[in-house]
Structures are given as C-alpha cells and as structure tokens.
C-alpha cells in the first residue's frame, strides 16, 4: 500500500486532501488560503508565518454583499467610538483572533490600506481598535479586508459589555486591598506570634495600626458578604454568607475591644486573611469567558440593514425601520429579516439557520417567506407583511422564557449545608457561653466570641468555588465551555437528556452517500464528479465527495437550474443530475433520505441516496450516557431516520418529529415539570428549548460562529466526549463533600479549643489559614487527578 504523506495547508493547517492549490511549493487547502498567502506576500507581510506555523483561519461564510449595510452612514456612525470629518475610531469584535501571529498581522493593517492610521489588538477580549481616515478609506472596505484575511468581525448594534468591566476592576481592587492588609497586619502581629510580651512600649501601637488597617477590609472588601447575608435573611434563608458575616463581625468586635482596652493584640490578621481568601474563592467562581458570548438575541442573527426599494430607488435601510408593505431586495446569501411575500418568480430559501434542515426550499411568487431564511442564488424582491418585531422568529424570542430572568436556584450545595451549620454554631456558642457563665463569668464572653471566630466557615466556603472553578478551567481547555459554576451544580440534579437532531447529532459535512443503479465506468464517474464540482449546492458537493475522483475534466454547457438539478457535457457524455422529475423518473415509493437521480445520454442510470451522517462516536457516547440519563429526541425533520436512530438510542427513547421551535419549547416545559433536563441543540430553532431547560448546551462546529443563547457551549467534534465530561462533573460533587468533611474536622478541633476557652490569637492565626489552604489544595489536586484521563 502506498503511504501518502499528509499534506497540511501552509496557511490554516487543514488537510489539503486532493486540492491543486500550490504556490511557491507551498500547499493550500483552498483558493481562499492561497489568496491570503499571496496577499500577505504582495505586501511583504509573510513574517506572519514566523510567529506560529499555520496561523491562518479558513474563510468561512463571507460573501460579496454581506457588508453592504456599512455603506449606510447612519449605521456606521452608530458603530463608531469617535467620529470627526478627518478621523474615525472604531472597536470591532473579532472572535477568530487566536495567536500571536494574529496580533502581528492585525496591527500591521495599515500596510494593506493607507487610510488606516493605527490598529491595536486587545488579545484576551478579542477586540481590534482601529483609527482611520474616512476620506481615504471606508469602513466597508476595511471590514472586507478583514474578512479576506480570515478575521471576520462580528458586528451588532447592541453594546452592553462595558458594564462588567468596571465590576471586574472593583473586584481586583478589593482583592488587592485585602491582600495588602493581610500582609501588613501579619507583620504587626509578629510580636504576638513570637511571644514578645506586651510590656514593650511599642507593641500597643501595633494594635492600633492593625485596627486602622482593618477598617477598609471590614467596610469595603467584606461588603458583599454582609449584603448577601442580609439579603438571605430577608428571604428567610441562612446562606453560607451569614456565618461568614457573623465570623468577620465577631473577629472585628472582639479584636477592637482587646486593642482598645489593652487586654490583647486581637485577631485582625485572621480577619483580613479570611476576607482575602474568600474573595479569591469568589473571583475563581465568577471567572467567565469573555471571548464567548452565551447570551444572544435574535438581533445578532439578523442583518442590520437591507436594501429597500422605494419609487424605483434602492436605499440601504435599517431593519428596525422596515414596516409592513415595504418592498425590499435580498441578494444571494443574505438573510430575510422579516416575514414577507415573494415578489420574484421563484426563489430558493435555505432555512437551515432556523430549522437545522439543510435542504433549500423552493418558493414561488406570492408565497410566504419566513424571517431567518437565507436566499440562495439570484437576488429577489419581497413585500414585507410583518415588521421585524412581529415575525415568527421574533415571537419565539419574545416568549416569556426569554424575558424573564431565570430564578437563581437556592439549592446550591453550600447553602443547603449552611442551613444546618449556622444554627448549630450559634447553639454551641450560646450553650458554651452560658456554661462558662457559671464556671467563670469573666470568660463567658471570650468563649462566645471564640466559638464564632473559629467556627467561621472559611474552608467550607472555599471548597465549592475552588472545585467548580478548577473544573470549569479543565473543561474549557477541552472545548466544553460552561457559563459559570452554578450551571455545574445544576447538572448534578439532571436525569434527562434532550437532543435536537439536525446539526446537533448529525453533521452537515459528514454525509453518507450510497449509489443505487447501473454501475458507472471510470469516464462517467470522472465527468459526473467534474459536473458536481461546478455546483455549490450541498447535495452536489456530497456526491462529489462520494465519487472522490482524480484529475477533473472540462465540462461544456454547464447549467444549474434552481430547485431542479444540473446538466453538462464532457466529450460524448451528456449528464443530467437532479430531482426525479428533472431526469424524467417518477418517484418510486418512499426513500430513506434524499435522492439525487442520474441520467446519462438520455437513459436513466440510478440514484444517489444522501443521508445525513451522525457524528463520530455518537453511538458509544449514548451507550455510556444511558446509565445516567433518559433520552428524548426532538427533530424538525420527518421521521425517515427513525429506524437508524433507534439503532443508536435505547428503545425507550421518546422521539418527536416535525417539531417547530414552539413545539420544542413546549416539550421541554413538560419534561421540566417532572425532571430537570439538559437540552443539547444548535441553531436558532432550539433557542427557546435551550433557555427553558435547566441546562442548555449548544453545539457549535466553529466556536467563533454564532451560537444561540445557552448555558454551555460544546465544540461539535467533542460531542462524543460528553459522557466523560459528565462523569467528572458528577464526581466533583464527591470531591466537594469530601472537602466539607475535612473542613468540618478542622472546625471540630477548633471548636473544642474554643469551648475550652483555649483560643489565643496565635492559635487562630495558624488554624484558619491552614484549614483553608489545605482544603483548597485538596480540591484542586482532586480535580486535576480525576481529569487526568480526559482528552
């Protein structure tokens, strides 16, 4: 057997397969990559490849008219950060930024276009800030240049991201101040640690210094614990922040009294250490991914503007301003923004965006076209029947599921524990104090405050954020991105998995093609492959991939008839490929999939059966998942695939076909009424269901592309790894419970000391950090260990 060396594209690293795109002995997977390479070379920018091998992005779905709306000055000025006649400044989101080469190339944009003054990248936020001279260049041409280079920006009119930035800053500042006070109070507590007696004249000043230093920690850094404890109390809930707040207060009050009455040095070091560690825990818990957007609304999917035809004049108009009765023009690859009636003779509309179904639908003049459909082929004119806000899709979005913020579950493990924990601690403190009141009344107050201090559940409070935070990091490195740690806790209680079919468990690129009919000879195969190569229709692409022929031949008289098929001639071979009607073959009963019929030189040869292929490893994954979950399958398609699906899913799986987005939403609601469920879907049609389920996981084949609103994003190729991911998520519960037990043991020892009245500042200063740090170490190592086999 001949061993072929695998050829990777020099630009993007994809497999080159059998492409013939070669420039200067470098292979490229497609014309796009080759063009980018040549473009870079022309501008003397090939250093791009020095920073990283194969840094490029494959060109995705850029098409010529996509950014026409940027000709509209009104839109441009809404997008700009700064605007003057000579100078424009804009910040663009570019999700495909991924390595140092990207920074280098994008910061050298002025070498492509002299109108650009400066470009700067914010790598972690994946943003590009651009300064340019509007007299010399236009935003549209800059954006198109970016698209050609494979860095398509994401342009939407909603801007709401600046808010969490300042919030994040405040958190870092709080952390900094608490850390600073922690360090310094420890320094000033040194005499106490070393047992230097209080007789030394300067020691008392240290106490005052510590008291002053702790004030900002109490009033600023620890704010959120008090607020949260107060909110919990008002809802009659004892959350974990309540004992923490009591602990901090007890520490502060007792220490202040000790210092002011000159009876001791206080526990200010323990207090600031506690706040510092807890803030680190919170920060770890709240880390979210800035580059991935989990919340999206329908506006991010729709075009910002389309051409409106008024009195025979075309004008680019904002979609929101369109009204019923307006006439619009939608060109090839553009998305119809609102429900409309077709005004052109015929149109091919691809609803894959809405339904996940990859076959284009043919619409005739006078028929209805729904919002979200993508026009394939020639431009069409449409009469709007409903403004954007009333269209079918928007109605789904305006469903209450989307308007109501989810009620945060109060079932977090830690809060469950603390409802028992807090009363117990208070009881111990009161009992111990009253017992001591009879033994030695002077010590009663000491014991009472010591119990509250030692029992402060610092280690307890850290166990869960560090476990879940570490888990979040591990999973995201495996391309499973989860919005926040609450979602992980929600997954623990789920028992039902709901799958969408098309696009989620099937993969559009992965077609299964079978040929039924009279065998073809090599020449015919070659001609057929060459014919299919000419067409961009997914069906002809599938046939082309199936034939997998060598050197292509020339095709004469190539014709592509929308919704019918292809014709063409090579030498003496006349090929007709397409629907049954088109080749003169009436349908022969129900076929399991979609068929493309073939006719050569007037005689019928047979048909290609094209079925959507399932993702690799799906059946094994389902086999593992069925131990833990029950399944439901929701599909917008017909039930032609039922028998194949039954081979993959267990027999008791509920399957629902012909589901509209609304049906899916209702189905999820009825499941949710009994058991918490996880919905796994893609596409806009699943958005409602994703939102209504306890946990919505959206599947994306390209992480930088749009994904509907969801709680988690999973890369499509990793779907088969889902059982492993769930295993470790469920295992994390055990880790947290073990950590709880460890910290309870520390608490028990500390409480015993406190009840006996033996707690000294040194003891507190040692026990508290040791317990916290050992718990954090334990959970971090445990998560790492259980994730060691994850790939």
């Amino acid at each position, binding site marked *: 057997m001949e061993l072929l060396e695998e050829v990777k594209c020099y630009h993007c690293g994809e497999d080159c397969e059998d492409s013939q795109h070669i420039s200067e002995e470098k292979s490229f997977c497609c014309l796009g990559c080759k063009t980018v390479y040549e473009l870079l070379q022309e501008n003397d920018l090939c250093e791009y490849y020095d920073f990283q091998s194969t840094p490029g992005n494959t060109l995705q779905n850029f098409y010529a008219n996509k950014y026409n709306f940027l000709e509209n000055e009104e839109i441009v000025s809404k997008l700009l950060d700064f605007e003057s006649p000579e100078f424009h400044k804009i910040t663009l989101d570019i999700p495909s930024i991924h390595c140092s080469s990207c920074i280098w190339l994008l910061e050298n944009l002025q070498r492509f276009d002299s109108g650009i003054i400066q470009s700067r990248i914010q790598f*972690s936020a994946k943003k590009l800030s651009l300064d340019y001279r509007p007299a010399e260049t236009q935003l549209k041409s800059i954006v198109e240049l970016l698209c050609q280079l494979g860095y398509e920006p994401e342009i939407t009119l909603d801007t709401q991201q600046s808010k969490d*930035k300042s919030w994040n800053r405040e958190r870092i*500042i709080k952390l*900094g101040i608490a850390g*600073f006070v922690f360090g310094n109070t420890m320094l000033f507590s040194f005499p106490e640690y070393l047992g230097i007696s209080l007789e030394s004249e300067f020691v008392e000043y240290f106490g005052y210094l510590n008291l002053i230093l702790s004030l900002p920690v109490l009033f600023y850094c620890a704010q959120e614990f008090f607020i949260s404890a107060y909110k919990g109390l008002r809802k009659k809930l004892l959350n974990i922040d309540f004992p923490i707040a009591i602990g901090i207060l007890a520490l502060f009050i007792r220490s202040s009294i000790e210092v002011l009455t000159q009876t001791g040095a206080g526990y200010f070091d323990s207090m600031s250490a506690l706040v510092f560690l807890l803030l680190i825990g919170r920060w770890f818990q709240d880390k979210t991914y800035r580059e991935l957007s989990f919340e999206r609304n329908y506006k991010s999917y729709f075009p910002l503007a389309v051409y409106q035809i008024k009195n025979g004049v075309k004008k680019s108009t904002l979609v929101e301003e369109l009204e019923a009765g307006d006439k619009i023009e939608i060109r090839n690859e553009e998305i119809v923004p609102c429900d409309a009636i077709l005004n052109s003779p015929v149109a091919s509309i691809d609803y894959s965006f809405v339904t996940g179904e990859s076959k284009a639908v043919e619409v005739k003049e006078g028929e209805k076209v729904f919002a979200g459909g993508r026009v394939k082929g020639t431009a069409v004119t449409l009469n709007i029947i409903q403004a954007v806000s009333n269209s079918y899709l928007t109605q789904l979005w305006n469903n209450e599921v989307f308007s109501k913020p989810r009620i945060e579950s109060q079932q977090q493990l830690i809060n469950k524990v603390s409802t028992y924990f807090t009363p117990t601690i208070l009881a111990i403190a009161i009992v111990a104090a009253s017992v001591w009141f009879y033994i030695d009344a002077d010590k009663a107050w000491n014991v009472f405050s010591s119990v509250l201090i030692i029992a402060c559940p610092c280690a307890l409070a850290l166990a869960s954020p560090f476990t879940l935070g570490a888990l979040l990091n591990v999973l995201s490195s495996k391309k499973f991105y989860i919005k926040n740690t609450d979602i992980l806790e929600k997954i623990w209680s789920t028992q039902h998995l709901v799958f969408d079919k098309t696009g989620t468990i099937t993969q559009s690129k992965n077609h299964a093609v079978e040929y039924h009919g009279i065998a073809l000879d090599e020449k015919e195969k070659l001609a057929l492959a060459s014919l299919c190569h000419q067409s961009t229709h997914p069906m002809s692409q599938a046939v082309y991939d199936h034939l997998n022929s060598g050197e292509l031949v020339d095709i004469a008289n190539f014709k592509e008839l929308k919704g019918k098929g292809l014709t063409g001639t090579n030498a003496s071979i006349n090929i007709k490929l397409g629907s049954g009607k088109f080749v003169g073959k009436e349908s022969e009963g129900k076929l399991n999939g979609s068929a493309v019929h073939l006719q050569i030189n007037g005689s019928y040869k047979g048909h290609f059966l094209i079925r959507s292929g399932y993702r690799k490893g799906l059946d094994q994954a389902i086999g593992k998942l069925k131990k833990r979950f029950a399944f439901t399958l929701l599909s917008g398609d017909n039930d032609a695939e039922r028998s194949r699906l039954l081979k993959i899913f267990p027999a008791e799986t509920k399957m629902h076909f012909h589901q509209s987005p609304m049906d899916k939403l209702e189905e999820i609601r009825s499941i949710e009424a009994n058991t918490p469920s996880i919905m796994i879907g893609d596409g806009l049609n699943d958005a409602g269901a994703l939102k209504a389920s306890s946990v919505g996981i959206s599947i994306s084949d390209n992480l930088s592309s749009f994904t509907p609103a969801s709680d988690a994003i999973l890369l499509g190729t990793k779907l088969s790894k889902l059982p492993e991911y769930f295993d470790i998520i469920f295992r994390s519960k055990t880790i947290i419970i073990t950590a709880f037990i460890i910290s309870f043991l520390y608490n028990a020892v500390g409480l015993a000391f406190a009840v006996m009245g033996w707690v000294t500042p040194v003891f507190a200063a040692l026990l508290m950090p040791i317990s916290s740090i050992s718990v954090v170490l334990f959970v971090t190592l445990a998560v790492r260990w259980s994730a060691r086999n994850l790939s």
Partner: protein
Amino acid sequence: MKIIILLILISLIVALVFLWLFVWSVKSGQYEDTDSPAIRMLMDEKKKSGK
C-alpha cells in the same frame, strides 16, 4: 525603640504607595489585557521598504 516606630511608619508608607500604584494601575485598565503587550514587545518593527 523609638527608631523602630519610625521604621515601621516608613515601611507602612512605602507599602501604601505600592497599594496606591496597584489601585491606579487597575483603574487605568492595565489588567484588562495581559497578553498582547507581552507578545507585542517581541515583534520587530520592520523598516518600511521604500514606500
């Protein structure tokens, strides 16, 4: 012993200066993007060839 109090005060003031610098650097956005400046400084400024 007086000298120790003085030294401690000085050390505290130095520490406070650093704290202020830290707060200032956070507020001015220096921690917003910690990746690109680190990469950017390694890239050579290439002389523009005869343009």
